[in-house]
């Protein structure tokens, strides 16, 4: 397939997942902000925006938090901006994505403006975004052939999901945000799944382990990295005997095995460092994928006659 189209699909996958993750994180933290003093709101906002890795606003108020994470269309860090960028990418790859997927992205984009931008409106907004992104993923899954195009979509989704879950976990580490493990699990939609693993009886602190390392829960960091690895393998199955020709596979695989083979004590002792590493690996893998698949090589341009 065309490099330009592959790139669009990769970013549709990333942006849709980013909208989903950001909506989840915002939703669970809004609860805590509700009724907090102005002083507290400022601290929480500052912490949250730092962890999300977005450009910092001029002042830290509830309004600027909602704007930065939910509504601004000017940057792709917000939910609205991500969904807008996903739609724009789909528009460029419209003959490759299925018409159902395009339509779902397009109607979502038209629906972005229909929400009140206050606290209560934002709850509704986050909920609506979770529904829409679930629908978009479902349609991609059921109406597109699971070919190369779909693999790029899936690859982008997996990398972004690993990154988002890592950020979600990082907010637990922040003192100011003070999220309970129950809320953390609810944020990832993992509460019931976690209870069923029986580890809850052992202690809530295992919730972190669950979101980081569970091999079966689809939103855990480990599982997301595994998915990304599988996509990379399917995209370039050419050389399997010795080592890895593919930088992205090396980076993702290295991170995955570091997580997988660390002892619980090591993880517990330096969780923030691991989370940071996950985010870095995702960024580096994304760069490696860009170089390998999307690079146009030397861009040709004609600069008029030779004088």
């Amino acid at each position, binding site marked *: 397939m*065309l490099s330009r189209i592959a790139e669009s699909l990769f970013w549709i996958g990333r942006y849709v997942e980013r909208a989903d993750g950001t909506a989840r994180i915002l939703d669970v933290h809004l609860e805590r902000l509700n009724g907090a003093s102005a002083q507290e709101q400022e601290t929480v906002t500052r912490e949250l925006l730092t962890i999300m890795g977005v450009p910092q606003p001029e002042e830290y108020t509830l309004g600027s938090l909602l704007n930065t994470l939910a509504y601004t269309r000017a940057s792709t860090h917000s939910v609205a901006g991500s969904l807008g960028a996903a739609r724009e990418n789909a528009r*460029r790859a419209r003959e490759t994505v299925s018409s159902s997927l395009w339509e779902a992205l397009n109607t979502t984009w*038209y629906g972005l403006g229909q929400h009140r931008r206050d606290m209560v409106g934002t709850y509704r907004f986050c909920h609506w975004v979770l529904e829409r992104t679930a629908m978009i993923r479902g349609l991609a899954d059921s109406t597109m052939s699971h070919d190369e195009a779909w693999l790029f979509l899936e690859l982008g989704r997996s990398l972004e999901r690993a990154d988002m879950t890592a950020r979600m976990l990082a907010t637990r580490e922040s003192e100011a945000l003070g999220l309970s493990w129950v809320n953390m699990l609810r944020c990832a939609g993992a509460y019931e799944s976690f209870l069923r693993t029986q580890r809850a009886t052992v202690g809530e602190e295992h919730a972190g382990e669950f979101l980081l390392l569970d091999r079966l829960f689809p939103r855990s960091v480990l599982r997301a990295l595994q998915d990304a690895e599988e996509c990379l393998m399917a995209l370039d199955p050419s050389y399997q005997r010795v080592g890895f020709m593919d930088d992205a596979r090396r980076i993702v695989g290295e991170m995955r095995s570091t997580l997988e083979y660390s002892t619980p004590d090591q993880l517990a002792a330096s969780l923030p460092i691991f989370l940071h590493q996950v985010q870095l690996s995702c960024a580096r893998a994304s760069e490696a994928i860009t170089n390998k698949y999307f690079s146009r090589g030397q861009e040709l341009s004609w*600069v008029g006659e030779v004088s």
Partner: protein
Amino acid sequence: MSDLFAAYAEALERGDAWDEMFAPGFTLRQDYRPVQRALDELSLDDVTARADSMARTFLDRGVTFDYAGEERAWPLDIVPRVIPADDWEVLERGVAQRVRVLEAFLDDVYSTMSVVRDGVVPRSLITTSAHFHRAVHGFRPAGGVRVHVSGIDVVRDAEGTFRVLEDNVRVPSGVSYVLENRRAMSKGLPEAIGSVNVRPVEEYPRRLLAALRTSAPSEIEDPVVVVLTPGVYNSAYFEHTLLAGMMGVELVEGRDLVTRANKVYMRTTDGERRVDVIYKRIDDDFLDPLHFRSDSVLGVPGIVNAARAGNVTIANAVGNGVADDKLVYTYMPDLTRYYLGEDPIVPNVDTFRLEEPQAREEVMDRLDELVVKPVDGSGGKGLVIGPDASPAELEELRRKVLAEPRGWIAQPVLQLSTVPTLAGGRFAPRHVDLRPFAINDGHDVWVLPGGLTRVALKEGSLIVNSSQGGGSKDTWVMARTGAEARPAAHREPEPQVHVVGDDWPEEQSQSPLDEIGLLPEQQQQQGGASC
């Protein structure tokens, strides 16, 4: 008759245009009976609700056009334009004849110019055309076709005669809206479309792909076809995606292509892949910075040389603009006789060539009653309608024409035919034109039954371009039924490329289900929860 037609008869009295639905005396034309029956059942609320739902669907599906930098839903009116089978047969032959003439003319212009030698047209007609490109002189494109796709604009005058208004053989657009309009109408007015035999339009992408593949360079066994678009900001971008999608081929931008040793490749995730046929939706001027505008970033350097070397087919061919120059248009009847030895089946509109002193003098006296058009304009750009223009505009026009007489033609103001159109809560007559699309694969010219009917939404207006507030109508060509139908032996063979669409053929006369008998029932959970 429905209340919605209450004031229609009066409105018809006011103008002297030919109405497509009603004959003089407000009698319904026969082919419109199913439409009228369906509309009769509807109240204003029904019609408005359906119109809104069609617009919403267009917006959701992204069937839009760019209006002042904004994506707008494609405007489709709920009343279709119906063309009787007899009228269509003439039109179809006329359009196909026109395409054959244009094809022969272009072939001649870019080779021996016998048409000039034989004194049919002056040499200056060709050499002064802004779209005559010397870069493509002296070679016949791979596949031998230049006018793969054409849109021949026709209008119906006050007497009901179809006349050709202009030819479009560069990058004719609008066919995607024909396909989308039909899709929308089958939900918007199902009562009518279900009860009549309207000729289908869905086979267009299949025909186009077949023609493009046929015209590939000859040594290629399984040609790779791509659609070349200027990109997402082009106003026809939707059409490019639709056609590429329905043909199942890649939609590429200039930066996706690279030429090397006179061969064209596209950059893919598996490296570079050879391209054999390019359906070009970029203006010639921007296509190749080596030959045309060197500041173009939309094009592909070297692509024209690749075509000259016969390694790639560009459809439509570069340099076609010389044939849809409006001054060349005035010579079309002569060209038809010269190349085909036939008389034109669909006549031209009477036209003054303003470069001829006598005609210019006459026109200058009557500027306020004529339509004056630039010869290389499209989309209604630069056109001045005398009766509607202010004295200042006419003065400006006079100055421009005198400065460059070669650049202009003049025509009498035509009363375009009207069709009932929803406006201000009821149906009112509005002027329409028609753009039938033809595909030429080198052996045969196929004309899409129907075409794009554009409608001027303002009362009395003759400007139908969507960029200037025009709307559109679904165009229904009636099929012949029973004994009238053409004998099967004359039917053209179906093209050999099959793209699975929603028109999956159901050809078996007897359903296979009848033979199987009882079908297995769906399984249900046993002994579990029940509702």
